[in-house]
């Protein structure tokens, strides 16, 4: 897919709390095709300590309005600067980057997200729904303060919630939610994004049930376009770049001990 470098205008900076924000960005130009699971590299200007671009997965896209949104959790100086950006300012993006999730043609899908890993799952649920796949989405967190945007996710699928302290939804870990073993639903594929420990638990659960599973990996990136080889992950075919051959991988291709 052809990549572009485009200036976007900040249309909205939706602060969810002091750690998380959703930026809605608009382009003057018509947006090219973007796949669920792909990411962008954002330029954070005027700071020597945020020297490199920052990768963020695409949270949602509206091709009619030419808007693209990013779910940003503060992880360092760069993301912190972005969460404080004002409406009307410009952001320079390189996109669309990476491979994207595979989308089946029918059936049911289970999407499991934790932390800022829920970011890419909104656009994924939307694409699944448009492709006649029924999405069930599990959002996990430590407590109800970690669960965001339930109404948005509900537009594209059935939302289920788990929290460690039981303050919202079922108490416990995402892999223990009762929907997973609901005898009335047969999941054809499981997607997950979030902390590695969570993704590994999901991968293990998927494997034990013999269900296809795709994970979206994070990695330290410098270029985002396959030019520097800084972002590799170990696969059964050797080291692969997360930015071009990922960020989405089938768990069967990874060398995870699960």
């Amino acid at each position, binding site marked *: 897919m052809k990549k572009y470098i485009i200036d976007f205008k900040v249309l909205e900076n939706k602060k969810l709390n002091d750690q998380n924000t959703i930026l809605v960005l608009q382009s003057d130009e018509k947006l090219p095709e973007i796949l669920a699971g792909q990411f962008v590299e954002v330029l954070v200007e005027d700071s*020597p300590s945020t020297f490199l671009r920052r990768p963020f997965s695409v949270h949602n896209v509206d091709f009619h309005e030419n808007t693209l949104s990013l779910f940003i959790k503060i992880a360092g100086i760069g993301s912190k600067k972005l969460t404080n950006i004002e409406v009307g300012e410009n952001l320079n993006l390189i996109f669309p980057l990476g491979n994207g999730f595979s989308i089946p043609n029918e059936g049911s899908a289970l999407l499991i997200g934790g932390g800022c890993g829920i970011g890419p799952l909104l656009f994924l649920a939307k694409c699944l729904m448009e492709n006649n796949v029924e999405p069930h989405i599990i959002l996990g967190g430590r407590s109800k303060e970690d669960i965001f945007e339930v109404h948005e996710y509900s537009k594209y699928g059935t939302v289920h919630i788990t929290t460690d302290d039981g303050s919202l939804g079922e108490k416990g870990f995402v892999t223990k939610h009762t929907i997973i073993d609901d005898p009335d639903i047969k999941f054809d594929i499981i997607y997950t994004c979030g902390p590695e420990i969570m993704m590994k638990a999901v991968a293990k659960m998927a494997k034990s049930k013999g269900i296809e599973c795709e994970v979206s990996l994070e990695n330290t990136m410098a*270029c985002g376009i396959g030019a520097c080889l800084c*972002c590799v992950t170990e696969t059964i075919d050797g080291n692969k770049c997360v930015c071009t051959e990922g960020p989405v991988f089938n768990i069967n291709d990874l060398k995870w001990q699960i």
Partner: protein
Amino acid sequence: MADLKIKINQLEFKNPVLTASGTFGYGLEFDDFFDVNLLGGILVKATTNAKREGNPYPRMAETASGMLNAVGLQNKGVDYFVNEIYPLIKGYQTNVIANVSGSTIEDYIVVAEKMNELENIPAIELNISCPNVKQGGMAFGTSCASAQEVTKAIRKVYSKTLIVKLSPNVTNIAEIAKAVESEGADSVSLINTLLGMAINAETRKPILSTVTGGLSGPAIKPIALRMVWQVSKAVNIPIIGLGGIMNATDAIEFFLAGATAIQIGTANFIDPTVSLKVVNGINEYLDRHKFASINDIIGKLEVKN
């Protein structure tokens, strides 16, 4: 429109702006963004004799005005390069230069011999300065004797333009430059990355899997400039300067210090089109200062006695 053409040995470059090895892939990764044929040349990523998986993750750490990398020469080996990559890049209308690396002199020789056969690779850059591999690499570039030995061996088997890429991790870079010049190097490029490290205080662990890595970006520019200046006083062969160049002004500083051409590395990650902007910016500078040619500013730093 000033004349931007330069020559290194017999090889002509349409302009003095090249991209640095390991930061520009094979050029193909940048085709979406601009016509890379407008550059003076492309240094493609390192090629070794055998396939190399490179170092484990994490391989990168961002630092103040720069970054550390520990890629470790990941590549699929010279035969893969010849059979699979070369056909994709041989049509470029710019100088495509191979970066040749190895763990032993024999390795360097095999790769150089195979590169010599490729019609559209008019030059090689001998990488004796990679800080990220256990054997060879920088070890060849940190003593005059070993730098001389590897240059001599390659000069015997390689008949086209031979550039030797120098390591800044030495006490006296001018001595190393003289040593490789005496063995027939046509040009030296400098600098490769500076050995550095980064620590996560919270976890009390190093950030890179290899503990140490190579520092690049604007943080190293003053050192690179100083070294280009010192080497330009010591040798007669043309110098290719690099290290932290982010824009045309940075590039001009390198020409004034004595570089005939420059390379752009880390800056490509922040703006993939930066190299083309540097070409245009150099031209604009020359016009504004009424210089007819880039050759009019090379080594023209005005120093009081």
